[in-house]
């Protein structure tokens, strides 16, 4: 039974209908998303454990990106529940009634989630450094000195130590995306959402960006939800791959299993098309 959300500091309530023994960091319960009459996701149930890296694959229009956008609260959830650390993100089930959670709770959960977008979405009115420290300083209230120090070390990590004072528009796409990764990591997210982060990049810089993400995966315990068409990357970093079609998970499993010996004909066909056999 879900507990009422009185304060943000309460113990993470055990997620309702959670059959998993460990507390999942993301849980979808009967999620439905419709745009008008168009149902994109229906009866979607899945869990992501802490530190787990899950890749969503499937044809475009299968709802993968919508899932990330629902977790980031960029789309309105039209049915069901999403729990972050066991707490309802947008709506909660109160005695069978679906009621919205407080803005405060939503915000406190959202600060644990970071997202990197296909089109980078850096703020053009700020320098690279300002892009990175803006939210840590003004949202999390961290001292500016600490935020700047962390920003410099993140820029080091993404291979752009000398770009702190550059304007985003003067950077190449690959460089902008690396800054965007640094900006998301500067918030110390528990969950990192990667939405086709290499799709807008020139082929020769795709690997630079993916290598940075591989390193993040190797060196941190951040939970990742990934939408990508880079199957090699998906195979390297993910613990679990979920194949989507028509708003449903049609198959899921370990990457080596899905990529080499999928059970479903649909998965085989999709992978054949993507890998270009």
């Amino acid at each position, binding site marked *: 039974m879900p507990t009422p959300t009185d304060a943000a500091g309460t113990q993470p309530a055990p997620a309702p209908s959670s059959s998993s023994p460990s507390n999942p960091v993301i849980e979808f319960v009967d999620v439905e998303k419709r745009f008008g009459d168009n149902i994109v996701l229906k009866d979607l149930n899945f869990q992501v454990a802490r530190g787990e890296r899950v890749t969503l694959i499937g044809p475009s229009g299968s709802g993968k990106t919508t899932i990330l956008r629902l977790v*980031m*609260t*960029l789309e309105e959830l039209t049915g069901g529940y999403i729990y972050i650390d066991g707490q309802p993100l947008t709506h909660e089930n109160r005695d069978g009634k679906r009621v919205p959670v407080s803005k405060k709770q939503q*915000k406190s959960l*959202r*600060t644990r*989630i*970071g*997202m990197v*977008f296909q*089109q980078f*979405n*850096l*703020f*053009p*009115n*700020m*320098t690279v450094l300002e892009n990175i420290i*803006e*939210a840590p300083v*003004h*949202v999390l209230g961290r001292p500016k000195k600490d935020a700047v120090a962390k920003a410099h070390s993140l820029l080091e990590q993404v291979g752009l130590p000398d*770009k702190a*004072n*550059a*304007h*985003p*528009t*003067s950077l190449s*796409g690959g460089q*902008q995306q690396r800054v965007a990764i640094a*900006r*998301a990591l500067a*918030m110390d997210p528990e969950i990192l959402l990667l939405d086709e982060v290499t799709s807008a990049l020139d082929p020769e810089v795709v690997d630079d960006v993916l290598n940075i993400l591989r390193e993040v995966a190797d060196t941190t315990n951040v939970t990742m939800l990934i939408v990508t068409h880079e199957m090699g990357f998906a195979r390297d970093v993910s613990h679990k791959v979920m194949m989507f079609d028509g708003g449903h998970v049609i198959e899921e499993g370990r990457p080596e299993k899905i990529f080499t010996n999928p059970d479903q004909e649909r998965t085989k066909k999709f992978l054949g098309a993507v890998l270009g056999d």
Partner: protein
Amino acid sequence: MDFFEDWPDYFEVVINWSDRLLEGLWTTIQLTIFGGALAFVIAIVLGLLAGSSSLWLRGPARVIIEFFRGISLVVLLFLLLYVLPQLWMRNPDLPFEGLVRNTFLLAVIALGINYGAYGAEAVRASLTTVPKSQWEATTALSMSWPHKIRRVIFPQAWALMLPSLTNLWVHLLKGSAIAYIIPFVNDFTFELNNLRRPTDIWFSHAFIGLVVYFILALILTLFMQVLEARAKNKLGRGPSLREIFSPDPKTTPPDASLPDPKDMTGPGGGPKQPASGAGAHPGGAR
């Protein structure tokens, strides 16, 4: 050319009347600055409200905008000057009587709300031109609404709304001429009317009036273009002010943080650079 025969005498009149003309000019400048400042504040507030997703904020804002956009400036002035004071005549106990009798203030208010309503449309439109992806990035960083507006959305919309605001401000300057009908507000047009009597209407209005209003409008426009160039440069588009005003653009040190050859607007290129669109990369050299 007997048309210009009397003009040497007319110029003498101008010199004799220069105190009054300058006073009128000063009044016009004050109307333009205070009216413009009030219009700006109204435009920002109404523009933000009209762009809100909440019907409770958007609805009233729209009604106010449409009302004050639709109302003629002359009618608005008459309402403020002659209808509003009736309230105080009937209820002498009402406070702020001094304000209602301050005709200069009423002129500023009329200009401010009339042009502010126009400006609100420019503000709202430029806010919607900021890509949705920018709003999404602010949500992904958990910024509050005032925070995202102040630090991310508005600075980008600012560069887009400046050309419209420049137009409106020049309109307001010229619209302020209507103040000559207001008692005790002796603006430049009022003094031109006085000047007409010892001279003629060609000299006073078609020459002095034309030249002075034109120069005032030009100064406003140049000032706003500087703001626009600065705003664009902050978005990483176009040269910095130092580059623009540098006598020799070649000697300006290139920005160390910009290794790429930037699109250099040549000497005298001034603030009018090509609007390079929302593209991520600066456009090619011209």
